[in-house]
């Protein structure tokens, strides 16, 4: 049996309209003649959302007594038994009440998909496991219910449901998101314009990365000989997200290159890798610098890579290809004599020749006069 098709509606925060959009598309599928049922819906007392669900079959919920309270959760058995063509399931990151077959709702959804049922589901970006710390640092709010990134990565489609932070705040004030008594606390805590701007950026980037990851496999064609051939050049696949690689040697000036690279990465919304290619085991002084760089990289959220090799250009070339680098940043080159330049091209020149698809940027040392030399990596 073929696995069902999974479409996720991703949003930056509650109230952007994920559930509404999921129901809207569910209605369209039903009108097109498909058998659609609601597996679980969290209407949050929003009349417009509830109205959008009208006419669609809602499957029964599972009632559980938990710590003296009666709670209701999605009934996995009921969905699989009913077996609609398409099932709408809200709140993918939800933690199930005890007593069910799985701890998390996404595990239930996985089982539904395995039975061949298509699923539409919803999630907010702050629930993604890898973004949890980032979102928490940006907003000061820790989200407890998380979702492994693999769930989003394995979805067949991810749809970003986006509104501007201003519109979302207007919706909140108009009582379209929460009950009136919950509006003011929400405005004072999570729903601040700076929080929403940051979350929106994270959500947009997440979807861009997902599009990029899925773009390449789609660009293939089946040839008459039965072979699947790529329609686009391998090196043309990094059109959307940027990834920077800062080349350093473990010495005090490296910190400046890493900081400059991090600033560029921030502006581009890119990941940053920091690479040192060592020819031999590090000296005590180099080890000290590496430890300091490790601490710097950790605070910045960059990735420190240590590689061994005699040919810095060759190792850099390999790492850049492996990590889909789009920019390389490095310190200024040595001032060699004309003969040396002729016989031994600089690292920058070699990288430009061997990695034509990658931009190269020499990080100037603005604190130093032009005549001073700055040690750089040997090619």
């Amino acid at each position, binding site marked *: 049996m073929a696995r069902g098709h999974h479409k996720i509606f991703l949003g930056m925060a509650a109230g952007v309209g994920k559930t509404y959009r999921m129901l809207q598309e569910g209605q369209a599928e039903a009108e097109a003649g498909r058998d659609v049922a609601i597996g679980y819906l969290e209407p949050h007392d929003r009349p417009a959302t509830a109205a959008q669900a009208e006419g669609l079959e809602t499957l029964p919920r599972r009632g559980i007594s938990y710590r003296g309270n009666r709670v209701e959760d999605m009934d996995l058995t009921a969905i699989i038994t009913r077996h609609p063509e398409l099932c709408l399931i809200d709140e993918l990151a939800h933690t199930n009440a005890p007593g069910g077959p799985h701890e998390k709702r996404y595990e239930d959804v996985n089982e539904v998909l395995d039975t061949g049922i298509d699923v539409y589901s919803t999630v907010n970006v702050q629930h993604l496991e890898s973004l949890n710390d980032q979102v928490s640092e*940006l907003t000061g709010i820790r989200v407890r219910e998380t979702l492994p990134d693999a769930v989003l990565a394995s979805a067949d489609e991810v749809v970003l449901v986006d509104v501007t932070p201003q519109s979302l705040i207007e919706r909140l004030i108009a009582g379209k998101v929460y009950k009136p008594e919950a509006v003011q606390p929400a405005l004072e805590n999570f729903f601040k314009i700076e929080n929403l701007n940051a979350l929106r950026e994270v959500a947009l980037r997440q979807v861009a990365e997902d599009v990029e990851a899925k773009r390449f496999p789609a660009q293939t064609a089946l040839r008459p000989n039965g072979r699947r051939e790529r329609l686009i050049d391998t090196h043309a696949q990094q059109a959307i997200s940027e990834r920077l690689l800062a080349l350093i040697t473990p010495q005090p000036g490296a910190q400046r290159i890493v*900081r400059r690279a991090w600033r560029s990465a921030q502006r581009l919304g890119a990941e940053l890798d920091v690479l040192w290619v060592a020819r031999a085991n590090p000296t005590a002084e180099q080890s000290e610098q590496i430890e300091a760089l490790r*601490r710097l990289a950790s605070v910045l959220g960059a990735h420190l890579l240590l590689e061994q090799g005699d040919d810095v250009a060759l190792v850099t070339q390999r790492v850049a290809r492996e990590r889909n680098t789009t920019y390389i940043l490095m310190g200024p080159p040595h001032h060699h004599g004309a003969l040396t330049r002729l016989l031994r091209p600089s690292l920058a020149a070699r990288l430009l020749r061997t990695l034509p698809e990658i931009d190269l940027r020499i990080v100037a040392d603005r604190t130093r006069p032009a005549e001073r030399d700055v040690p750089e990596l040997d090619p």
Partner: protein
Amino acid sequence: VSWLKREKQSGASGPAGGDKRILFPFDAHGLAPSALDAALRLARSQSGTLVPVFLARVPLHLSIDAALPRQSKLAVAMQDAVEQRADEFDVPVDSRIERGRSYRHALRQTIANERFEMIVLAAAAGDGPGFNAGDVAWLLANAPGEIVVLRPALAAVAPAD
């Protein structure tokens, strides 16, 4: 020729520095230009290297090794400013970022991780940037090496950026 080569290699972080390393911790509350200048004058007089350390505070709701983009922005801007000022004084620098659950915890980590001979500390004036009396007392009791406490600066400024 080998002497020239050594000279060239030692210029890694700017002007050639001596072996004496002078820690200059500061935090996100800013740093007083007068304190920085005093630390740089001390470093220059001793032919030492200034080690400006940005102390990052990791809130309890984050894991201790989490990335800190908001504080990083501040740290990067402040360290660039410190390095530019150090260059005017012709003092070599070797910047650091250290993290902890509190500024004192980050300071403790700095002392544990760094090689240094002296700590130059700017004392706070009221709510201004710098370290309070408790931090200074703790440092005097716990840190090895010389400790220079600079008196509170009136012309304290918040970080740029």
